[in-house]
């Protein structure tokens, strides 16, 4: 089975993050890591490869620094990677990002595309759906379990109440949550081997996309303003003068907690 895993480099959610002067995510000075959910996608792909055979390819769109995350991803075990890199991509919205990724996937002809259900920077959660739509294939999103049976994919889609079983034929896009598996650590041998694995770089011209269709020029949405989240407000203290219980109930019901 030919599997492609979408991997995005994001600023480490554990450190200070911010937006640059042009209201895009600050990537230059940030401590960048693989989007955490993508590690689960890689793990799932490697498990399927171990059972079904085939090849696992990492696909990343991002600036030069994203190459670090590609190496990290490869050190977990995938066979090769494709890095879409082009200055004109800066400022791309979700729609144009999906156009680029779909075009790159077109060159790879995958049976299965696996992605993390969201990235910790943008958190829009739409990329798997958009890509599937552009490629005209099924989108199985929000999986907490994935089984492969020949050309049939079945997922358990995690919902707030429980899960739904959804089935589709390959090729398809599957997005996964962090409940699906426990990602492996890159092995020592994997780290040493990652350097030798092929990483193909593609520019927009290689994908037949004009610079004006993507980046700031082609963006369908734009961040015009941003502000820090306001500091948390101090809570309301209720002194218990014998009617503490009643006051508590009153507070909870006024806030519609009960």
């Amino acid at each position, binding site marked *: 089975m030919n599997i492609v895993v979408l991997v995005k480099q994001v600023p480490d959610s554990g450190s200070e993050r911010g937006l640059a002067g042009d209201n895009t995510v600050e990537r230059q000075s940030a401590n960048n890591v693989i989007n955490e959910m993508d590690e689960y996608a890689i793990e799932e792909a490697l498990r399927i490869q171990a059972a079904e055979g085939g090849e696992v390819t990492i696909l990343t769109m991002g600036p030069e620094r994203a190459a670090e995350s590609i190496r*990290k991803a490869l*050190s977990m075990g995938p066979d090769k990677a494709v890095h879409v890199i082009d200055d004109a991509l800066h400022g791309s919205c979700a729609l144009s990002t999906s156009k680029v990724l779909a075009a790159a996937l077109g060159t790879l002809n995958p049976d299965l595309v696996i992605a993390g259900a969201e990235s910790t920077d943008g958190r829009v959660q739409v990329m798997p759906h958009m890509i599937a739509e552009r490629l005209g294939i099924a989108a199985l999103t929000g999986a907490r379990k994935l089984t492969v049976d020949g050309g049939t994919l079945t997922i358990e889609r995690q919902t707030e109440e429980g899960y739904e079983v959804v089935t589709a034929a390959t090729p398809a896009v599957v997005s996964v949550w962090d409940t699906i598996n426990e990602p492996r*650590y*890159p*092995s*020592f041998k*994997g*780290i040493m081997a990652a350097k030798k694995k092929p990483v193909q770089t593609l520019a927009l011209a290689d994908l037949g996309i004009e610079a004006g269709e993507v980046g700031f020029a082609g963006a369908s949405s734009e961040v015009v303003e941003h502000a820090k989240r306001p500091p948390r407000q101090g809570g309301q203290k209720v002194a218990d003068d014998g009617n503490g219980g009643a006051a508590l109930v009153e507070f909870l019901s006024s806030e519609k907690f009960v």
Partner: protein
Amino acid sequence: MDFSLSDEEKAVRETARTFIRKEVMPLEQEVLRRERAHEPGLRLDELRELQGKARAFGFWGLATPEEYGGMDLPAVMQSLIWTEIGRSWVPFRFGGEADNILFFANEEQKAEFLVPTIEGERISCFAITEPGAGSDAANIRMTARRDGDDWVLDGEKTFITNGNDADFAIVVAVSDRDQDVRAGGSTAFLVDRSMGWRSEFIPTMGEGGPASLVFDSVRVPGRNVLGEVGQGFALGMQWIGKGRYIIPSHAVGVAERALRMAIEHANTRETFGKTLSTNQAIQWMIADSETELEAARWLILRAAWTVDQGTDARHASSMAKLYGARMVNDVVDRVLQIHGGMGYTRELPIERWYRQMRLLRIFEGTDEMQRLIISRDLLRGYTEIGGHLA
């Protein structure tokens, strides 16, 4: 000049860091709780389980040759990993290691001692120090007397790390009184505990403690000589010299973690209506700590790099050990001062570091022995001022 790490070095360090964060650090509070109750912070079975988890992705035997299943890492990578380990006070280390001098064993001995030690099935200890012979190791008095094909060992060893748990000891004893201990007069033996030596726990200011080993006419078969008869002291010096860049590498991790705690405390704790961090006295302690920490880091990495170049690393390693051990004691002292009374309690790991790190200035070559080596090299003209850049 390029001070950056290679992609592989970064990746190996990242994996070690993630493992320590996910698997080891969650045990930290439990380690403190147990130690407050005078129990071992981490039981051997727990250590082995963690080591097994790391082995599953190939982190096993940092210094062990590949033919024994190890990683055989360059010294710089080992140094980086030990710094990561040092960031947690959980007494964890990766498995698959054995005393470097066990590799001098013959094939039968390797099967009996080396391989099971690497696999964690046996525990070794190395015994050269005696009540009357520490830094002056050539003063050892333990005797090894030939009796037919056997040797009979009599005497006492002390401050032996792992001596309480070991099931065999690598013991250096005087095998020929007529020769200098350093040149042919001493021999190293592989001695099973079942051959009759006994150990006694020595309480120390640190957690856990070494042992004294008593040998009372312990009979050792001739086949248990490690290396050659007469080679004991030379092997002993190899054993001692090996860890000199590892110990301060670990200390750098300790200092990093402790300093981070101090910075966070200084930024949050308020006294007299402002945070501690606004006081110049605190700022200077933080500045000095970071400066010394970085100075130590680069001395240590240079020593490790020297090892990797295959050149004589003794001088560089001595400076790294001397300065790294001193640095971590000074940094922890300041971090304790910044934390005030809280730093003195056993709720935080700081007082623990304060006690544990003191050992670093004493064992595996005291500060004074390192200074002796460093100055002797210079005074006798063995080493140029400026090291490899001279």
